[in-house]
């Protein structure tokens, strides 16, 4: 596992604020749980715990179209659940936001049920020609989240940020 970055939850909240992100929604994954707790506790950030990922895509679209810098959290299979919404709402309306994806199913995942998720995710990302960035390929000083938000706004589309490994210090689930 790359070690350039500190544990996700120690650094990510600072990156959220530096990027100007004030509105977040999502559906949990074990890798994201600590981050979600911090987002939910933060007085300066609105966090909406959505019941399903398709719904979360619509909520983050509302945030963005109403002028806020916004982010959504999901597991990869949550995006697979929601491709109709992603294409007909997020892409058709050209909505910029950061989509943080726990990309389950690689060699760090021991659950057999996670393996199909990354297989089909890889196929869908390719078929839809979606650009992705891997979080752990960057260093702390790269200020990655701000760059992702800038990319989303420049391209006028969601910017996909992949967590390809469990956060440091967290048991592989």
């Amino acid at each position, binding site marked *: 596992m790359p070690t350039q970055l500190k544990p996700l939850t120690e650094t990510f909240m600072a990156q959220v604020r530096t990027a100007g992100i004030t*509105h977040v*929604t999502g559906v949990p994954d074990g890798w994201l749980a600590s981050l979600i707790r911090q987002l939910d506790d933060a007085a300066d950030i*609105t966090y*909406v*715990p*959505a*019941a*399903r990922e*398709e*719904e*979360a*895509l*619509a*909520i*983050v*679209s*509302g*945030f*963005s*179209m*109403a*002028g*806020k810098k*916004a982010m959504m959290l999901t597991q990869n299979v949550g995006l697979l659940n929601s491709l*109709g*919404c992603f294409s*007909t*709402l997020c892409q*058709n*309306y*050209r*909505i910029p936001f950061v989509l943080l994806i726990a990309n389950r199913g690689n060699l760090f995942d021991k659950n057999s049920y996670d393996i199909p998720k990354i297989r089909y995710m890889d196929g869908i990302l390719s078929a839809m020609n979606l650009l992705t960035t891997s979080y752990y390929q960057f260093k702390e000083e790269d200020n990655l989240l701000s760059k992702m938000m800038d990319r989303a706004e420049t391209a006028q589309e969601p910017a996909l940020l992949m967590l390809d490994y469990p956060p440091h210090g967290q048991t592989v689930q």
Partner: protein
Amino acid sequence: MQQVDIIRHLAEAAHKSGAIVVSEIGSQTQWLYSTGDRPSHLYLSGPMGMAPSVALGVALAQPSIPVLAICGDGALAMNLNALATISYMAPKNLTLAVMDNGVYDLTGQVPTPSAALDYEHLAKGLKGLKTYTQVDLNSQIVFSATQGLTLLHAKVEKSAQKAPPFPLQPTHIHSRFKDFLQTKG
């Protein structure tokens, strides 16, 4: 009561109240457009069921502006879990209006499953909801940013005519809506 008439009634009340209107893909967007196009209208063109959730995002992002989501009963049934999320967040400036004719109006008027729903009882189970009202063309409707989360239910007939075509493109709707919000300051 025809859907177009109650949508016109709601849209006029929204305009007088300075409210944003988010409309569901299909007959709600098409009838709303036919009653008068406004930059405060955020028309959706897919997928079905997302109007309440988009409206939730808009309402939380712009808490000083009233927001109305106009939904069909079939579309709402497709995203009924949104009611749990909306009730949890309970934005005071959000109103959901359900146009209930029991059919998918633009899809051959085949039945929706919502005939099995009692909206008044459903509303009683939503802890964040402040007001539930059955509305018609005689209802006095005002939207405010402080009124509390509201659910309006309108029993409407199957449309006698097809809703007129909707010509606007999603990117135009999006950019125009953002411009509108900037003018609101």
